[in-house]
Every structure is written in C-alpha cells, then in structure tokens.
C-alpha cells in the first residue's frame, strides 16, 4: 500500500481536482493512464461529497481495474471545492479534504471505507484536513489495509 499527501491544493472544480489527482497517481505509477478521466466519470455517476459537522470530505474512486499499485492519496484544499453530495446528488458539499482510494481488492475497499467512517465519526476529519501528511493519513486510516 502506497501513500501520498498533497496540502493546500488549488483547484477550481471537482473535475479539475480529480483530473489533477488522477494525473499524480498515473505519474507515480500507481494507476493506469486515463485514470483521471475515469475518476471524473465515476464521480458524475456516483458523487462522493460528504458533509460532516465541521468540514466537507470527498472519497472519490474508480473501478479497481485502474489500479496498478494499491494506494491512498490525500489532498487538503487551499479553498473548498464543490462536490455533489453522495446522499443527495442534487445538493453540493464544500469539500476541504479528499481521500482518493486506489484499491485492488473489494475487501480492501471495504476495510478502507470502514476506517474512513470511523474517522468521520471520531470528529477528526477536520484535524486531518488541517494537518495533512502521509503519517497522519496512515495513523488514521491504518497500514494494515492490505496485509502482505
């Protein structure tokens, strides 16, 4: 499992941000070329913006066929970016933190999602958004998501 964290990212829209992060993942060798477009399409069909009491989070992903190396990329945003709301796609969420999952196995997707839900319910998502780093991501989302 690889990890990356990008702080104070600037993007004008969810599409721009997903394209940017998708391109990073491809450059790092963790996703196949075209991944950014796949993220944009998936987000349009199944939005992932989540409104928490103290911040907005998005958890974009695409089909696991795009994954070369399982990884989690975190991005904190300099200014919030509007994503459509996962619960109600007609609404929008001002997102401060993006956690992008590159998953190779459904069981890993489930484990990471469960850890994300624990993070949401712990009220620490805002801390993570404000102090994003690879070690903070690992602390909160765990290393054992893909046991070797």
């Amino acid at each position, binding site marked *: 499992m690889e990890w990356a964290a990008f702080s104070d990212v600037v993007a004008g829209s969810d599409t721009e941000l997903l394209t940017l992060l998708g391109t990073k993942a491809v450059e790092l060798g963790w996703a196949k070329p075209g991944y950014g477009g796949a993220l944009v399409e998936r987000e349009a069909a199944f939005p992932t913006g*989540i409104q928490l009491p103290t911040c907005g989070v998005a958890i974009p992903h695409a089909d696991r066929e795009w994954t070369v190396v399982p990884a989690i990329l975190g991005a904190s945003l300099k200014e919030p970016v509007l994503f459509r709301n996962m*619960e*109600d796609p007609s609404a929008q969420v001002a997102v401060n933190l993006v956690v992008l999952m590159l998953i190779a196995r459904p069981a890993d997707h*489930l484990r990471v999602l469960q850890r994300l839900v624990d993070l949401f319910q712990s009220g620490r998502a805002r801390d993570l958004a404000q102090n994003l780093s690879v070690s903070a991501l690992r602390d909160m989302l765990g290393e054992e998501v893909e046991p070797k």
Partner: protein
Amino acid sequence: MSKRVLVACGTGAATSTVVANKVKDAMAKAGIAVEVSQCKVVELDTAVARTHPDVVVVTGVLGRTEVAGVPVVRGFSFLTGVGVDAVVEELKRHLLG
C-alpha cells in the same frame, strides 16, 4: 424470528456493506435479531420482491417512502454518525411495530 433489513446503495458494494454492518451492530445493541441483505438502488424493486424485508435502508435520497408497502429509512447517518440515534429509533419502530 429474525427481522429482515434490505440495504441499498448506488453500487451495492462497499457503502451498503458498511451501512449493513452498522445496522447489525445497532440492532444487536437494541436486542433485535436481524438478517441484513444488500442490493443496488436500481435493483430495489426486484430485491424487495425476492427478500420480503421488514424495512429498507437506503444510503441516498430515494424519493419514495415505501417500496411495495415496505417502509424506507434513510441511512446515510450510519456513515457520518450525524443524527444516527434518530435513524436507529426509526428502524426500531418499524421492526418492533
């Protein structure tokens, strides 16, 4: 006899599994035995006809309050924790009522 809960999300995969686990935990805590199954929202009508649930939990906005007479509860709270107590009470009401 166990009550049956059907959880539906967009893709019928990870999100509904997390919600299904939360529903199981919450109902176990309330002393209510439940069997939980999952489906995609687009398959909801056929899944209800097949599994005859006592209640349906959806992770999004369905725009329907019932499916073939089965009450629909919005369960996104199980992911965020916001307002989850009210949702648990609503589920208990449907399952015990």
